[in-house]
């Protein structure tokens, strides 16, 4: 057994910590309050080579999806600086990986260059909401018309809508109902005239992800911009990679809140005691609870990351679910407890605690949510396996 971060990628983790503190954190409040896209952060991360990390080495990347445990810790560290940026970074990075994982040589070269050039690729997939027990559905259809696909449909919660340089479209390629054969991944520059942004994202949490709704109004995309074949994106060796990083990002909100409140407890003094509140046993007890919750969540995250590489994403599905549950719950628990420890000042908008607290709420809700995780986990126990699509 060896719990060390892969030494080959340790530098990335160190750099992520530095970028989080020096680049992301100072801009985080503005991004949150104004609900703006963290363009500057992306440019800075691109300049440092971070937006190509998940590209294969031959395309100038670090192939970081081959070391998912470290990848998740990089996300976690970035998220402690700015949850929004980490989330978008993950979306960009996971789709970057999948394009080169599934793509043709020509596509690899082409998108490799685009990504290395600092362009941002956005990934989204939400359609009309499905029930907890429902199977995946895809109402947006792509109809082949000569050399192009023509696409019409509506999507919800489209992160980076209006801001990414390229959009990724999840569509149904034919009329066939069986998504494992027909679900396709298309890429198009965001200036395609068929993209219409429909509704303003004004949310309580994750405001910098600007996840508007979008309408595809007869979007035409050349057939060569189809990545992989129908069904590939939801292959059990592909799909989990999209979801796994969320857990790391949301846990970052808990980690950020924890760091903040420890620092706070060590400096905050109340009249007339005039000693740091960190000396009060009731505060210590709660910091102990937070610390242990955080450690457990980090380990569950690393374990799932390690399993993806050691046993394959399909075999890691149970561990990924468990990590999502533990990370989301730990982050919610830690941010709530941190508020209690901080008292009134924790509510102030100029302190980041309230931001972390809100971001953690999105963690509880974003798929797979708490209930779904529990259901899927129960199935691994009761039936010995969980379906990748969770149906």
């Amino acid at each position: 057994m060896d719990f060390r971060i892969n030494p080959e990628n340790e530098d990335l983790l160190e750099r992520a910590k530095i970028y989080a503190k020096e680049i992301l954190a100072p801009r985080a409040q503005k991004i949150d309050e104004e609900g703006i896209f963290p363009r500057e952060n992306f440019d800075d991360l691109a300049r440092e080579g971070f937006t190509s990390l998940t590209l294969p080495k031959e395309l100038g990347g670090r192939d970081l999806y081959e070391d998912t445990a470290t990848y998740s810790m990089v996300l976690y560290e970035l998220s402690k600086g700015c949850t929004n940026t980490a989330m978008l970074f993950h979306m960009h990075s996971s789709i970057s990986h999948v394009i080169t994982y599934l793509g043709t040589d020509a596509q690899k070269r082409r998108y490799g260059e685009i990504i290395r050039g600092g362009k941002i690729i956005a990934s989204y997939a939400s359609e009309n909401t499905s029930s907890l027990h429902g199977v995946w559905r895809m109402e947006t259809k792509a109809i082949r018309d000569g050399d192009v696909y023509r696409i019409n449909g509506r999507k919800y919660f489209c992160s980076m809508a209006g801001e990414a340089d390229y959009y990724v479209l999840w569509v149904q390629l034919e009329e066939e109902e069986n998504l494992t054969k027909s679900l396709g991944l298309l890429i198009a520059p965001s200036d395609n005239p068929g993209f219409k942004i429909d509704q303003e994202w004004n949310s309580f949490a994750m405001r910098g992800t600007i996840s508007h709704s979008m309408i595809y109004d007869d979007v035409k995309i050349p057939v060569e911009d189809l990545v992989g074949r129908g069904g590939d994106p939801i292959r059990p060796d592909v799909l989990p990679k999209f979801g796994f990083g969320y857990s790391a990002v949301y846990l970052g909100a808990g980690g950020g809140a924890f760091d903040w409140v420890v620092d706070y407890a060590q400096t905050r003094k109340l009249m007339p005691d005039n000693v740091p509140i960190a000396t009060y046993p009731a505060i210590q007890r709660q910091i102990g609870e937070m610390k242990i919750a955080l450690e457990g969540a980090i380990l569950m995250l690393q374990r799932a990351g390690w399993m993806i590489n050691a046993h394959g994403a399909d075999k890691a599905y149970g561990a990924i679910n468990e990590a999502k549950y533990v990370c989301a719950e730990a982050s919610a628990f830690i941010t709530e407890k941190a508020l209690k420890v901080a008292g009134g000042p924790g509510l102030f908008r100029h302190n980041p605690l309230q931001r972390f607290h809100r971001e953690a709420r999105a963690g509880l809700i974003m798929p797979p949510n708490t209930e779904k995780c529990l259901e899927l986990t129960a199935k691994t126990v009761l039936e010995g396996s969980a379906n990748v699509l969770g149906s």
Partner: protein
Amino acid sequence: MDLRINPKNEALIEQAGEIARDVLARYADECDQEQRFPRESFDALIREGFTRLTLPESYGGRALWSDPVCYTMVFHELSKGCTNTAMTLHMHSSILYFLLTLSDEEQKHRFAEAAQNGAIFGSHAGEAASSPQWNRTITTRARKDGEEYVINGQKYFCSMAGEADHYVLWCLLEGVEELQAGLRWAVLDKNLAGITIPSRWDAFAMRGTASHALAYEDVRVPARNIVGTGEGILQPDFVPRFGLGYAAVYLGAGAASLDWIVDYALKRKLLPDNVPIASYPAIQRQIGEMKIAYETALIMIQKAAWVLETQGAEKAIPFINEAKYTASEAAASMTEKALKIAGGPGLLNDKPLQRFHRDARAALVMPPSTEKCLQMASSFVLSQNEAKSIF
């Protein structure tokens, strides 16, 4: 045993519920988002006589603090519509009641008449934060100068700063160190020279209370506006009554989230099931938990109010502490559960759920805080005589 509400004031509670639904709820989101005082709601409350609730009947009031159960239920109802309005009206109503208790005859008449004509009183007690093992420290000073007093000091968490017509300050006569002897209340016209707002209330919860800081620099106030003689100025029932009202108001955020989520669960349908999510067992379970938490908190508040009425403040303090704890934890857990049930849509700012959730976070930290309540509940058990002060 008789758990019926006093029939005399039942209509008032109903009326509060109506105003909450018809008026307060209409402005609540806007005031929250713009971080402004709910002026429209307050004006409506003035018109309907709700700013006179605690005035004697001879001044057109309802003397409502003589029936603490109804008092709490009225504010609980108002809070379901707008937590900010209910909280600030509670501050006004309570301080008015205390003011008249301490005033001499001339003052009593003058203040009561002002209130009868719609004047709003803000109560400003907050100074630098005190430790859980608290002794109140007052640094704001009043120096006699002829027929006037000169006030110097700074106050925090001054609800309705810039909005109330009169600020009621706690200050210490210059040259007197002993609180019991030197504590006075100064009633200041908000337009007096020397009053400034050095920092604004900018928080993620209770955003409409205008709880800015207020600085007083050589503010000159006529001697007739100095209230109290040292005798009884630390009436044992002042702080408990504030705390009891907080419990009722904060629980309002929980109640509102329950109402909202029940309505949502009965309407929201997910594909492909196409039945209301209220029919899913996992949803029902959580709504059941919310409802039970709510009922428990409500009866704890009512019991504390009843003890206050029948046995006096000193006996009531432990009950009020327990009610505040239970109500705060209930509001926090109810709003968190509601967010989980609602999923993505619950995060959107065009729905009030995220507001209820944020406001409930103030419940956890506003005095008496969770920790303070636990400490007091414990000391009440461990030695029957330590449970006096609650903030």
